[in-house]
């Protein structure tokens, strides 16, 4: 008997424990990415109200215990939990989280401080990851890890506190910036 695709994915993620990429899932299951994504959506719906949640973060997906049982599981978890975050870490994490992916110079710009140390510390804690910038091979971009999502109890970026509102404000500010640029272009030309 063959299980539906979403159940097969559930089994794979259950076995795997860690996050897995959609690309890898599509290879393993020998179906195209669109079908995998469709099945993931179904799985997410089926898991609603269950003890297990599906987290999607960019190309990566992962099964975790549901947020609602965190206190129960904490009793069973032996690993030492992460300590407090410093002010600088919180500010940096918030930029990385809401921006989704961001360069170091953008973080430096917003905070007016060189973010090298803090980014390194956050990478060591496994909360932020660095990847090559697809648009510029020499530059790096920083992204939140799926583990950071787990620590925040969210399964996708839209669940970040005040996500909609913040995105709107960011949008306004960036429009203002491009307006400024246009204005100065007009003057200098």
């Amino acid at each position, binding site marked *: 008997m063959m299980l539906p695709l979403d159940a097969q994915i559930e089994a794979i993620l259950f076995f795997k424990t860690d996050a897995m990429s959609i690309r890898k899932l599509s290879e393993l299951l020998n179906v195209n990415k669109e079908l995998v994504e469709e099945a993931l959506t179904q799985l997410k719906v089926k898991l609603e109200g269950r003890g297990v949640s599906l987290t999607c973060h960019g190309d990566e997906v*992962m099964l975790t*215990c*549901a947020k*609602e049982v965190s206190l129960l599981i904490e009793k069973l978890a032996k690993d030492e939990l992460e300590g407090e975050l410093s002010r600088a870490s919180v500010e940096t994490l918030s930029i990385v989280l809401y921006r989704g992916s961001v360069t170091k110079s953008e973080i430096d710009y917003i905070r007016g401080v060189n973010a090298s140390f803090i980014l390194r510390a956050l990478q060591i804690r496994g909360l932020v990851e660095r990847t090559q910038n697809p648009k510029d091979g020499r530059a790096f971009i920083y992204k939140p890890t799926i583990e950071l999502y787990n620590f925040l*109890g969210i399964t996708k970026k839209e669940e*970040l*506190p005040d996500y909609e509102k913040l995105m709107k404000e960011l949008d306004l*500010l960036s429009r203002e910036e491009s307006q400024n640029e246009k204005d100065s272009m007009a003057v200098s030309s």
Partner: protein
Amino acid sequence: MHTEYKVKTSAFEGPMELLLLLIEKRKLFINEISLAQVTDDFMSYLKRLGTLPIGYTANFIITAATLVLIKSRSLLPNLLLTEEEEGDISDLRRRLELYRLFKNAGEKISSTFGKHIMFKRQYRAIMPVFVPDKSLNLANIQQSVIDMLASAPKKEALTETTVQKAISMEEMMENLTLRIKETMRMSFKQFSNHHANPKKDGKIFIIVSFLALLELVKQGIIAVRQENKFGDIDIEGLAEQKI
């Protein structure tokens, strides 16, 4: 939390943090007017930073430069600013808005962090099977260590551009002084030479004394006099005020 605010040296990681706190302390909105209002507070904090390494103070000094522009314009509305300076001002305001946005969001992030962890499964026990691959040989292992050592971050050299910018401050201040002289007829250079030893007190003192001068002009405490058309411009106390 912010009500018990006291200026403490190196309590702030960067200029944005300090600037936002000064504005929020006065319950102001972020705009040019409020930035002009908190400029003096910002400078008095900076004075205490004077002894810290340039790597730490550089970012504060750069921000101070823009604040000086804002303050100058607020006191001398007919002062003409260059396009670049206008850009710096609107850029600072925008950065501060961005910073505030993320800082506030960060407060919510930190209050949720670790509160309701979505735990991942425990790992199943490992039953190791020895599976090496062809990349594993002594030469590769050695090369990998050598590469790693080469790409390790060096003792964080101060970002040179930042320090450069902070150092060129003096030039910028002189330039601004000249232009203000044209509108206000005074010799800032003389003023600052008298009252500051730039070698000893550094850039921060120059900024601070400049601001003090602006303030005095505004308040009509000093007047400026010019002997001949192209001659030196003097500053003169109106009353027996000590500057």
